[in-house]
């Protein structure tokens, strides 16, 4: 069990965080460090790509919520790319679909960044 995190710059002062693996109580600190590190550097427009994430729990959701809360304080936004129906279901039942922009592909998520 592991999570792979990679960060890349994208056009328009935004960054994409690619995640691959499982996000749980053990691995979520690594995601938090990556997202928090970008925000600390003044990056407030993020796309977090969950296409290769097989599992996420409440600690993973907490990291995403925490990141969104921080960027919104600076007028930023976080959009998610999510195609896994099980992951999408977690966002649905927790109501997080209402606070995150969730898209089927990265292009759509990038274009929708405010």
């Amino acid at each position: 069990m592991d999570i792979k995190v990679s960060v890349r710059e994208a056009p328009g002062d935004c960054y994409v965080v690619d995640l691959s693996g499982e996000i749980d109580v053990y691995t979520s600190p690594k995601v938090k460090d990556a997202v928090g590190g970008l925000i600390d550097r003044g990056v407030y427009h993020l796309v977090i790509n969950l296409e290769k994430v097989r599992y996420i729990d409440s600690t993973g959701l907490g990291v995403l919520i925490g990141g969104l809360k921080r960027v919104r304080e600076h007028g930023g936004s976080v959009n998610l790319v999510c195609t896994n129906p099980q992951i999408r279901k977690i966002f649905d039942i927790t109501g997080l679909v209402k606070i995150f922009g969730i898209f089927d592909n990265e292009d759509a998520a990038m274009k929708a960044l405010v």
Partner: protein
Amino acid sequence: MNQALENAASSEVVELRIPARAEWVALARLAAATVANRLRFSIEEIEDVKLAIAEACTAVIQHEDHGEFIQLRCEAAQDSLRVRVHDSGRHDVATDHQRMNFDEARIAGLGIFLIRTLMDEVSYDVHPQLGTDLLMVKRLAGAPA
């Protein structure tokens, strides 16, 4: 198959004891998923069970007074899976959130919400000396409540 064999096959128990640390939660959810798979739950239902068990273990680990180990007991009956997550630590789930900061409480609340949403029955058994049991039941689709 005689009755004794039928009964044995209809209720099987798997028990697992893991250190109450984050790196072991994956093993707990893998074990629960394996038992759920034997019950012919759908893939989606198995994912529900995995997440609920992991949330239960995570709730234990994130509590400052948790015990050294988490004990997991999965009982596979003919039409349901019963899971008991035992923490020997002394705490009251109902008041835990009062000792957390806002963000911790919000995430812990999310975990409890997920457990209650994904499982068919959820109950707590809190004992001052013996610790806390979280009992969860997931029924096969179509099984009577």
